[in-house]
């Protein structure tokens, strides 16, 4: 009934538009189709903009260390405690808590140890800055190694001394005998 009513409206508009000139029923059909496609895509774009609950749970759980595992995140661990911790994360998200508030909740109970990536402050800065500090040392080592290798290579190359005239003469004779 509703479809029929809409179709009737479109038909009526088609007639008016056609009489005004420029817009034909075919144009209008295309416009309606494009609009329908755009509208059908809208929920997908909204979905992409706001990640769903389980995605958020996984993202937060990936930042937390499983307390009863060796080097596994709460997201990756199959242990029962990790499962329960994911449930706590889910509950707190449903209560409207932010990602930081949830991470703080676990830090308050387990300490910063619970975070897989240590915060960039205090002694933890060593972990973050050490690779950058060692970079020039490594570069210097590579430079020194390369330099030494080139020097040794040069030293190993025999000097291009002039050939003794007696050997040159003999060599020439040998070569001539093959031609």
């Amino acid at each position: 009934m509703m479809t029929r009513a809409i179709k009737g409206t479109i038909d009526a508009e088609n007639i008016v538009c056609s009489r005004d000139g420029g817009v034909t029923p075919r144009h209008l059909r295309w416009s309606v189709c494009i609009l329908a496609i755009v509208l059908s895509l809208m929920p997908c774009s909204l979905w992409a903009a706001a990640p769903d609950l389980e995605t958020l749970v996984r993202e937060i759980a990936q930042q937390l260390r499983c307390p009863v595992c060796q080097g596994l995140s709460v997201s990756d661990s199959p242990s029962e405690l990790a499962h329960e911790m994911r449930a706590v994360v889910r509950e707190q998200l449903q209560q409207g808590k932010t990602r930081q508030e949830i991470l703080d909740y676990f830090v308050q109970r387990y300490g910063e140890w619970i975070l897989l990536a240590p915060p960039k402050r205090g002694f933890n800065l060593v972990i973050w800055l050490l690779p950058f500090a060692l970079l020039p040392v490594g570069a210097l080592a590579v430079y020194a190694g390369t330099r030494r290798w080139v020097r040794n290579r040069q030293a190993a190359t025999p000097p291009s001394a002039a050939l003794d005239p007696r050997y040159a003469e003999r060599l020439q004779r040998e070569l001539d005998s093959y031609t």
Partner: protein
Amino acid sequence: MSVKKFFILVSATPVLALLAYGLSRDLGSFPSPLIGREAPSFALSLFDGGTFSLDEHRGKVVVINVWASWCIPACYNEAPALEAAWQRYRERDVVFVGVNYQDREAAAREFLARFRHTFPNGPDLGSRVSIAYGVRGVPETFFIDRDGRLAHRHVGEISFDVLMQQIERLLNGAGGLS
């Protein structure tokens, strides 16, 4: 010492030092960040049908023991000491509560019957109490002072002497937290 050896030494020393530091740390010895702060409140449905609510015991010293029947031998070794300490202090404003961690109900009941535990005990459904207290394994025992603050956390098997020492300290109103 050649330049090469010097660079190897300079590069390897901090890495090895960090590795040694990380491996030598005992995870159980990490202090709880909750020490000195208000103990997280909780309510526990007990095996005997009642309910235990921490909030109802403010003003008393509370001992929370987190245990499991599969925790062998530590939980079995400490079980008699817990009951003995409870019997000794139950009339002196001290409350004991057992929090059964990730266990099967039948096995937990069997454990309680075997050691004739008479203090309140209940299953930690969803591990909510354990997570709230930052439990990393069993057994762990927490001591809450009369003001409701977490005063001490003991990781691993606990002895009667340690139970007595901690309870006496809190009953005497010692302010020191550990």
